[in-house]
C-alpha cells in the first residue's frame, strides 16, 4: 500500500509530513526559530475618486525594531497596491509572486489587471497553505469596474469593505475610522483620515511606529507618497556634527609594531626563466 502511494507525484500545496515531527520536538523543549513580524498598522479606505492605502514603517523582531523605515505598501500592478501585515518574508514573497502572475496575465490578455484577479490569486494561494503563510493583506486598486478595497486573512478568507484596518495596530486605527469615516470623502480629507488612523496606530500600538506611508490610487493615476508624514524625528542631533579631529583625545603613549617583517633581500642569482 505504502509503495503505491510513494509512486504518485506530489500535487503541490503544503506538505504536512514534518508537522508531527515538529510537534514532538517542541514537546521535547526545542524552541522553534523565530521570524521577523511586521507588527503593523495598515489601513485602506474608499474615497470619491478611488482608494487610499496607508501603512506605518516599523518592522519588529520580537521586542527589537529591525527596520525603522521599511516599505509595507507593495506594488501589484500599476493600478493595484497591497499593504501587508504579519511575517515580513511571507508578505513580500506572496505579493511579489502574485505581482509577477498579474504581469504575465496582462501580457496574455492585453488588458489592465483587475483587483478581483489579484484577490483570487492571493486567496487561493493562502488557503492552500492553510494559514501557515502568515500574510494579512489590505488590497486596494482601481480598475475598469471601479475602485475596490479588500482584506485578505492568512487562512484565505476575504472581505470587501469601504474601509479596513489590519495588523496589531488595527484596533487603534479602526477606532479612528469608525468615528470619522463617511462616504464621498475628497482626496485631501481621505489622506488626512488615513494619516490620522496610522498615527493612532503608531502612537498607541507598540508594534507600529516611525513614519506614515500613503498610496492614493485613482483611475489612470497612482501617487505613492513614501514617508508622507514623519511624526517621529530624532530629537537630539548635535548641530556641530560628529567629526572628531586629531587632538580631541590626549595621547598617553605610542607604540608601533610592524605587522609584516620586511624580508631580507639577499643578492642571489637571477630566477630561472
Amino acid at each position, binding site marked *: 500500500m505504502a509503495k503505491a502511494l510513494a509512486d504518485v507525484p506530489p500535487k503541490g500545496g503544503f506538505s504536512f509530513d514534518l508537522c508531527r515531527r515538529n510537534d514532538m520536538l517542541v514537546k521535547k523543549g526545542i524552541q522553534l526559530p523565530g521570524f521577523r513580524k511586521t507588527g*503593523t498598522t495598515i489601513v485602506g479606505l474608499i474615497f470619491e475618486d478611488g482608494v487610499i492605502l496607508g501603512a506605518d514603517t516599523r518592522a519588529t523582531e520580537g521586542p527589537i525594531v529591525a527596520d525603522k523605515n521599511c516599505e509595507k505598501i507593495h506594488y501589484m500592478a500599476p493600478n493595484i497596491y497591497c499593504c501587508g501585515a504579519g511575517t515580513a518574508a511571507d508578505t513580500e514573497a506572496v505579493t511579489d509572486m502574485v505581482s509577477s502572475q498579474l504581469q504575465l496575465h496582462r501580457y496574455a490578455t492585453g488588458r489592465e489587471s483587475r483587483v*478581483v484577479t489579484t484577490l483570487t490569486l492571493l486567496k487561493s494561494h493562502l488557503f492552500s497553505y492553510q494559514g501557515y503563510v502568515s500574510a494579512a493583506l489590505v488590497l486596494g486598486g482601481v480598475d475598469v469596474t471601479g475602485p475596490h478595497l479588500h482584506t485578505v486573512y492568512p487562512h484565505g478568507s476575504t472581505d470587501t469593505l469601504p474601509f479596513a484596518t489590519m495588523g496589531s495596530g*488595527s*484596533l487603534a486605527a479602526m*477606532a479612528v475610522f469608525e468615528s470619522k469615516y463617511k462616504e464621498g470623502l475628497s482626496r485631501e480629507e481621505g489622506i488626512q483620515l488615513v494619516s490620522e488612523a496610522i498615527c493612532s496606530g503608531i*502612537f*498607541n*500600538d507598540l508594534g507600529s511606529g516611525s513614519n506614515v506611508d500613503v498610496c492614493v490610487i485613482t483611475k489612470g493615476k497612482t501617487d505613492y507618497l513614501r514617508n508622507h508624514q514623519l511624526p517621529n524625528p530624532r530629537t537630539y542631533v548635535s548641530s556641530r556634527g560628529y567629526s572628531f579631529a586629531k587632538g580631541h583625545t590626549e595621547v598617553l603613549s605610542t607604540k608601533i609594531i610592524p605587522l609584516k617583517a620586511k624580508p631580507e633581500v639577499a643578492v642571489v642569482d637571477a630566477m630561472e626563466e
Partner: protein
Amino acid sequence: MEWGAVSSEGKEVSTILESGSQRTLSPYVTGTSVLGLKYKDGVIMAADMGGSYGSTLRYKSVERIKPIGKHTLLGASGEISDFQEILRYLDELIIYDHMWDDGNSLGPKEVHNYLNRVMYNRRNKFDPLWNSLVVGGVKNGQKYLGMVGMIGTHYEDNHVATGFGNHLARPIMRAEWREDLTFEEAVKILEKCLLVLLYRDRSAINKFQISKITEEGVTISEPYALKTNWDFSAFQNPTKGAEGSW
C-alpha cells in the same frame, strides 16, 4: 483572523488543590469595557448594561457603575459576582467609616487604595477577583480617576478604560481629551468611544448608562441607546463587479 497582541479577560480551568478547596479561575457572567474621563467639574464614566454568560447575552440590565459613599463612583468590568462581592466589602468599609462620625469621609483616593490592596492580596493567594475596576470621584475640589486590575496593577490618569476599551477607546481619548472639557463635550467623546465599541466589541450591547460625579454629588443617567449607521453603499452589494466572489 489575527489581531496581533490583543487578548480579553482570559480563561483558565479550575483546579482542585490537595486540601480540597476549589479555586475557580474562569469568569462566568462578565461585563465588557468601562470608560472614564476627567472633565471640568468632575469625573464622567460610561458602561453598557450587558452581562454575558460566555457567548450568550444573558442579562441586559446590569448596572456596572455604582456610587460609593459621597465622593466616589466605581465601575467594573469582568465577573459580575466578584463585582457584587467588592460592593459588599466597600459597603462595610463605608459604614464603618461613617460610624466614626468624625466629619471625615472616604474619598476616591482612599477607595482606590483599598481596592488595590484587596485585589493584590487576592492575586497573591491565586484566587483573584476577576475584575478591572474604574474608580473616579471628586473630594474637596480634587478630581481623581484611577484603575485597578485583577492582578493588582493600578494607575491614575486623565482618562481610563478597561478591557477592549483600552484598544479601541483610549486612542480616541488620547487624541481628543483636554483640560476643562465641559460636560457636553465629555459626553460627546464618550459616546464616540461607546459607538466604536458597539461596532467592534462582540460583547457590547446598545444600552448605556453615563454617570457623572461632581462636588455636588452623583448622577447616573437612565439607560439609553446610541444611533448606529449601517447604510454605507459598499455594504449594499459587496460583490459588485465580481459576481460570485465574496
